[in-house]
């Protein structure tokens, strides 16, 4: 071995040490949060994943490798019904949220320079109120003798109370709309706000009318905001269980309710885990699909 190559090797060794300590430092930095996630998220997830393949019944759980839990889920009509409900309600709520939230965001970003802070604050205040209090407030508002029905009755618009207002999918969508609106408005608002006025002016001078500016400039530029809203809102809505339990009634039974009852009342942890992973898998596929369709990779 020549001296030169020896020296090179030594240097390599020093580089290695250097990199090692840097790596160690980095590890120490992310260590506490990582341990936290590991202990309280990934480990339980792993346990649940394993459990979903075990033989499982009422308060029994016995190690095995079987697809029984998954088969049971896909062959039981009320579970399939709950899955369909889940996607109908979450998708319906998402559509309603965008139909209501987009115009609010658009108005805020384009026409309300003096009012935007106030309006955003008003949007956020309800989020600060306890979640259960809000749901119960809705229960009162939507009930047979709630303010909506009484108002409509007193005005003579209807002859008897609207029944679909409470304990229905509509009720769940209405409450979700209220619950998630700020999370839809704010990302879209920020995306629209980021479009400089000169971009819009350039489009105008190049021959775009107001509608065309929206269609060809503002709408495409708000796609990242729409995508952020979707991820922020649609995924938690798929896992929702409190809202359907309190205002949804049996016709709005969602997967979240099934999972909850498997763990808390039916005592079938294996089945509960299996349903949880089905939901997770479908969610991941959906998000991947939306990323592809919206072409958000390009914009991020």
């Amino acid at each position, binding site marked *: 071995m020549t001296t030169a190559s020896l020296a090179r090797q030594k240097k390599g060794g020093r580089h290695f040490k250097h990199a090692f300590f840097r790596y160690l430092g980095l590890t120490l930095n992310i260590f506490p949060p990582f341990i936290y996630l590991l202990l309280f998220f990934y480990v339980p997830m792993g346990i649940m994943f394993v459990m979903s393949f075990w033989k499982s019944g009422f308060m029994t759980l016995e190690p095995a490798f079987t697809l029984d839990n998954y088969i049971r889920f896909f062959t039981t009509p009320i579970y399939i019904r709950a899955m369909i409900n889940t996607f109908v309600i979450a998708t319906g709520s998402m559509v309603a949220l965008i139909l209501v939230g987009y115009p609010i965001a658009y108005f805020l970003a384009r026409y309300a320079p003096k009012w935007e802070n106030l309006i955003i604050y008003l949007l956020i205040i309800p989020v600060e109120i306890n979640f259960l209090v809000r749901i119960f407030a809705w229960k009162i508002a939507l009930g047979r003798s709630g303010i909506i029905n009484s108002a409509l009755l007193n005005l003579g618009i209807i002859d008897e109370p609207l029944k679909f207002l409470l304990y229905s999918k509509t009720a769940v969508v209405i409450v979700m709309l209220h619950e998630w609106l700020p999370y839809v408005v704010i990302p879209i608002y920020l995306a629209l706000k980021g479009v400089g006025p000169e*971009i819009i*002016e*350039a489009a*105008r*001078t190049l*021959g*775009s009318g107001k509608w*065309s500016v929206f269609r*060809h400039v503002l709408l495409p530029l708000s*796609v990242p905001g729409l995508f952020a809203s979707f991820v922020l809102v649609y995924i938690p809505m798929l896992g929702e269980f409190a809202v359907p339990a309190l205002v949804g009634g049996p016709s709005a039974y969602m997967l979240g309710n099934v999972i909850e009852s498997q763990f808390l009342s039916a005592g079938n942890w294996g089945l509960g885990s299996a349903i949880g992973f089905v939901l997770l898998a479908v969610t991941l596929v959906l998000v991947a699909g939306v990323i592809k369709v919206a072409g958000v990779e390009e914009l991020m």
Partner: protein
Amino acid sequence: MSNQEIALEIRNVTKRFGSLIAVDDVSFEIERGEFFSLLGPSGSGKTTILRMIGGLLTPDQGHVFLHGKDITFDPPEKRDVNIVFQNYALFPHLNVYENVAFGPRRRHWPDDKIRKEVTHLLEMVHLAGYEEKYPRQLSGGEKQRIALIRALITRPQLLLLDEPLGALDLKIRQSLQLELMDIQDETGITFIYVTHDQSEALTMADRIAVMDKGHILQIGDPKSIYEQPHNRFVAHFIGNTNLLEGKVASVAGGDVRIRTPRLGEFQGRGLDGASVQTGQPVTMSVRPEKMHITRQEPERPGYNKIAGVVEDLIYVGVSTEFIVRVAPGQTLRIFAQNMSRDDDLWQITWDDPVWVYWRPEHSLIITE
């Protein structure tokens, strides 16, 4: 100038923002195919005028005519006028091809026509092969070229350029200046070019309108703006100048003699067509490159001359700039070509007593 040659007429246009009068009763006309420049310091109202021509603002008073048609209240998309913005304003979600094709698509051009035109224009600005790039992948100069052809592709009757090169460094700016002039020549499109850089306006424009505080002070070709400034502001803003204040001592035709309180008497010439009275306060403007500097008292009959002391000198490549103190607190600037061999220029240094002299023909008498 026959009427159908007028591309644009601005007639008594005023625009206020609250109590501020940004554009004050401005009128001018631009001929078809002209390279017209609006020149003035920042805040003088140039952009405001441009935006009213483009339809992004509506005047409070007055009218805008495009080829004889009153377009004062037409929305921007209905005017055959395009704008090149200082910050490019490219569409970030569209690639270069689609950015350039934006105008044609709104006009429903067939695809093959769009392809042909976009390709042609990209070649013209030396950016062939850039079709698929996104604005964020381009340099400032490249962005501005794309913004330019995006505005040109539909062959508007009028192209408005708002300090289009302002954000670029000197080298790129100079090469783009030449490119822009070529493109304007080739396309024959009428250009209105806004700038606060007098040298840019002098180099590029057929005619210049000098603005200050919402007013147009003077309109003319670069030579007349430079040689015959109508007032102190224009004289000072366009290039450098030495201003000597005094009163008219005597008038003989265009020749005016002024008496200054501290520097003696000088012989100058009045503006073409202007008249001055004896005793009237006036200003004499002399360009630094028209003044000469020497150590011996010059033997040149008829020249204006004055003695002083060199306060400072700055070598700037091909020339030297001298600052000569001619009275306490009063200095003159003189540019001398370094190649000049006619005197002892090289030996002149700080604190030397010198003489400054210049011809009466180069001493413009300004009354405003």
